[in-house]
Structure formats: C-alpha cells, structure tokens
C-alpha cells in the first residue's frame, strides 16, 4: 500500500475487508468486565449501536478506536487490527464524542481546521476543508463566531464537522442529536443519513434514541451488560417468525382470547379497549383469523398488519 506506515498492521488476509469484525472481544476496567466476549461482523454501511446506559457502547467505541487494550479476543476495523494499529485506524475514522469537548478560545473555523491539522492534513487543505464541512453541516455563517457562544445544537454540528474534516472512511457519532430542537434534529438526522448513504462513508451511530438509529441506519448492534444481544440488518431483525396485526373487535373478546391461545396465537388488548394486537405464526394468513373470529361470534372491525418497530424489538431483546 503506497505511503503505508509500518504501524499499519493488518490482521490476516482473510479478514481484511469489512467495516468491523470482532471475535470474542473482552475489555475490563480493573475487576469490572465492560465487554464480555463480543463477537460481531459488519460489512459496512450505517450501523446503529444500541443499548441502555452501561451496556458497553462507549467501551466498544474506545476498543475499536484502539484506545482501550483488549483483555482477550481480537478484532479489526476497516481491515486494521484494533490492538496494534490504533493510530492508523484513527487516521481513517472521524469521531464525534458525546460530550461538548470544544477547545476554549477558538471559533468554529479554527476548531475544525485545528482538528484537521491534528490528523496530519497540510495547513492549506485543513483550512479549505474546514470551510467546506462547516458549510455542509450548516455552520457556514457562524464559522467565525467563538465556539463558546454556540448553542448546544451548533456545538453538535461543529463536532460532526471536525469529525468529517479529513474525509474519513468511517464516521463514529456518539449521541449526535443531544441538545437539538425538533427541526434541528431532523436536519441533522437527514445530514447523517446523507453522509452514510450518499457520500460513501461508513457510519457507526451510538444512541439511546431508537428513532435516530431507525432513521439513519441499516444495521444494528444491540448490547446489554457488555454482551451482544442481537446484531444484523434492521429489516432482517424485524422480520421474525411471527406476524403482528393491529385489530379492532366488537363482541366476546374473552372467547376470542381463549380460542387464539388454543390455536397458539396471542391476543393482547388493554382493559376495556376494542383495539389490540394479535400475534400469529408467520404461516397463518388472514383467512384463518376471520374464520376464528366468526367461530366465536366476534366482529372484526379492523385488521391491519403492524410493522414491529425497532423500539419493540429493542425492548423484546432486552427482556429475552
């Protein structure tokens, strides 16, 4: 590879491709095990990193950036060994941390070009790119204002700009929509979606906001207590061996509930309400539902297939 530095260490040739590949990665803070043998592989695209507080999301980000030594296991990010090629990885990654992290006394332009310089960009290029990415994230007119005077949303945009300044192959964003008003939030989610889907830049988005992940990502890695709960394409994870319908009924609900249970289905409705959810095996079609309803004398007033949201998937996975 031309210009490659000696520290640019590749793991064995079979696993050079792909965004992230972790094999039984364990990371500990003293006696506390923050990651408990995570094994995951993602080819690329936009990946959401989900999990409740303390799940190990930040530790996982630190580990893949080569900032945390692994207790055991191994892994690659963008084909580089995370244990040995941290510097090379960080050259190709743009990271926007969760916290403010702005350097006092600078304006937006100086901050972003300074970050470009720290990566190793020549002065001229760093300045030109700073103008470009600040324009891109919507801070074009505020670029010469001191960072100290930026609103929380503007600081988030400045952090995204500093992460993009060197045109990384992978953008890692940690809670990027914190502090935004609804309009600003939509704009930033659109921007993140644009980066990951139209600009040929991989994305890892760590968030506790499922909607953000659902809107911007195609894949998800779900962590709980330092362990991997689920991972894969969001659409695949949503399509399970069950079908879910939203139904509205009138008539003997108790009989219908009992008959559904007998057939191996699940009917859930809040007390007294006519609307509810019916979960049936994937092979059951709507005709069978109508037949059962007729059998118990139930009037079906609405039957709509319901798409399982990421939130439901998330909660179900955590319960499991």
């Amino acid at each position, binding site marked *: 590879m031309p*210009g490659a*530095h000696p520290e640019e260490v590749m793991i064995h040739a079979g696993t050079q491709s792909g965004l992230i590949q972790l094999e039984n990665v364990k990371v500990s*803070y003293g006696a506390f095990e923050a990651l408990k043998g995570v094994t995951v592989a993602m080819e690329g695209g936009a990946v959401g990193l989900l999990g409740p507080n303390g799940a190990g999301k930040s530790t996982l980000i*630190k580990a893949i*950036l080569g*900032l*945390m030594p692994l207790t055991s296991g191994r892994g690659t990010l963008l084909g580089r060994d995370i244990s040995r090629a941290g*510097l*090379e990885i*960080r*050259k190709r*990654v743009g*990271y926007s*941390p969760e*916290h*403010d*992290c*702005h*350097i*006092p*006394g*600078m304006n937006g332009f100086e901050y972003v070009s*300074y*970050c470009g*310089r*720290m*990566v*190793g*960009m*020549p002065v001229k*290029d760093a300045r030109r*790119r700073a103008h*470009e*990415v600040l*324009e*891109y*994230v*919507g801070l*074009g007119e505020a670029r010469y204002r001191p960072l100290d005077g930026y609103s929380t949303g503007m600081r988030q945009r400045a952090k995204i700009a*500093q*992460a*993009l300044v*060197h*045109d990384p192959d992978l953008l890692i964003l940690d809670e990027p929509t914190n502090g935004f008003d609804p309009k600003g939030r939509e704009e930033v989610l*659109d*921007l993140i979606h*644009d*980066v990951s889907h*139209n*600009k*040929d830049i991989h994305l890892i988005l760590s968030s506790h906001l499922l909607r953000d992940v659902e809107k911007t990502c195609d894949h998800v890695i779900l962590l709980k207590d330092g362990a991997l709960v689920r991972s894969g394409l969001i659409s695949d994870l949503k399509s399970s061996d069950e079908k879910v319908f939203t139904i509205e009924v009138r008539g003997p609900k108790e009989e219908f509930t009992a008959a559904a249970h007998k057939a191996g289905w699940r009917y859930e409705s809040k007390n007294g309400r006519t609307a509810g959810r019916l979960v049936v095996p994937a092979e059951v079609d709507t005709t069978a539902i109508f037949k059962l309803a007729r059998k118990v004398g139930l009037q079906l007033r609405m039957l709509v297939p319901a798409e399982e949201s990421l939130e439901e998937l998330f909660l179900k996975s955590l319960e499991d």
Partner: protein
Amino acid sequence: MPIYDQSYAHWDGTLEGRLLRWKPITLNAIRLAFRSKLFLIVFCLSLAPFVIRVGMIYAYSFIPQLQQESHFARLVAVDGTFYCNFLVRNQFISIVLMCLFVGCGQIARDLKVRALEIYFSKPLTLLDYVAGKFGAIGFFLLCMSLFPGLLLFLSDFLLSEEGSFADKVQFLPGILATSALVVTTLSLVVLAASALCRTTRNAALVWIGFHLALMISGQILAEIFRMPFLVLLDIRESLQFLAQTVFDVERDFQIPGIYPFLYILLINLAAGWVLLRRVKKVEATET
C-alpha cells in the same frame, strides 16, 4: 437536492508524517496565548529586565563617561556570574509569570472541557499530546531565558570591546545548558500541576504551593540541621547552583554539583511521571 449536498466533496490529499504531529498543538497554544491582550502586556513586561540590560550594555559601550564609573562597569560586566544571575535569578519572575499565564491552563483547560476526547480520537499518542503542550510552555520559557541570553551574548559580542572572541564564546554552552535545565524543569513541573487540576486557578495554586513548600521546607531544614545547603530543596536555588557549576563561577555552597543535579533530575522524572500517568488515566477513563 438539499443545499448541503452541494458543499461536500471528498478530500484526496496526503496526510503528513507522524514525527511532527505535536506541532499543531504547540502552535495553536502559542497563538491562543498571544490572543489575550493581558498576556501580551505581561509578555512585554516580562522582557523588561532583558531590555534594560541591553540598554545598559549599549550605554556603557557608547558613553565614555559611564566607562569611568566602576560601579556601572561592575553592573554591566558580562561574565559567567552575570549569565548565572540573569538566566535564573533575574528572569525567574518573568518565568513564573509565563508559567502562571500559559503553563497552568495548558492541560487543566482541556480536562475541564473534556477536550482529550477530541485529541485522542485523532492519530495522536500520549507523547504527541504531552510534547505539544511542553512545546508551548517551553517556547514561552525559552523566550524568557534562552533568547534573551543569546541576544545579550550577541549584544556583548557586537558592542563590547572588552575580552577576546574566545573569552566570549566560552559562555555559549553555559547559556544553552542553563536555559535547557530551567525550561525543562519548570515546564514539566507546571504541566504536572496542570494535569492534576481541572481549572487554571487550581493548577496555579498547586504549582505555587509546590514551589513554596519546597522553599520553606528547605529553609526550615537548613536551620534545624545547621546545613545551609539544604535550601537547595528550593528548585530555583538548585537551578542557580547548577548554573554556577556550569559557568564555573563561585558557588553559593561547597558541595559537589552532582547532588543538586540528581535532585533536579528526580524532580523532572517525578513531574514527567505524574504528567504521563494522569493524562493516560484520563484518556482511558474519559475518552
């Protein structure tokens, strides 16, 4: 098409090598320091002792009446003792001001705003970061020690007709060695203090407290044990003693120079250890 689509283009330039990765940190810190008007005033005032000295040498060289004044001649005599006193004692207040205005906030401010997360998400090592910060405070301390020392040497070399070329050049290694000792020691100590705190004010208090504690304990121990050289616990006294040794002039105490050297070396190692350990700990837990 949204507006932002028109403003993003891929960058196909080449990243610079790793060796000078500390340089932007140093240059940025210097630039930010000079942006403060108060600091600019302090910086200019700190150069006053040097300007006065140059003025005195100039006046002595060009005003014949002054050359008759033996008292004035002693004042402007540029010899080893002069450089010793100038580089350590005379410039110490200026160095203290630089440490307080520039050094104490270097790492403390980054810790306060959690800027280490930004630094270490870049291809920077712990040593790059520390070297960058050291470069910044080192530059300002060099402005107060080495540069005035060299300019005084140059002034004396060009203006004074006393002494031969060889007599004057012999001071050059002493100036370099003394400045290096002063700058390295005081930079490391102030950066260690800065790394221990999250505000510039607290770092300044820790730094001043550390120097005062060594100075006072040195004087107390010297009184208790009737050993005057124990005042060398004060970092400034030790540096002065080492400068006297380097310039081979009359020393304040009759003890081998190796002891103060080892003491200063110990201070440097301890400060370096605290600095690296503290930044590494924060890097591991907060980034």
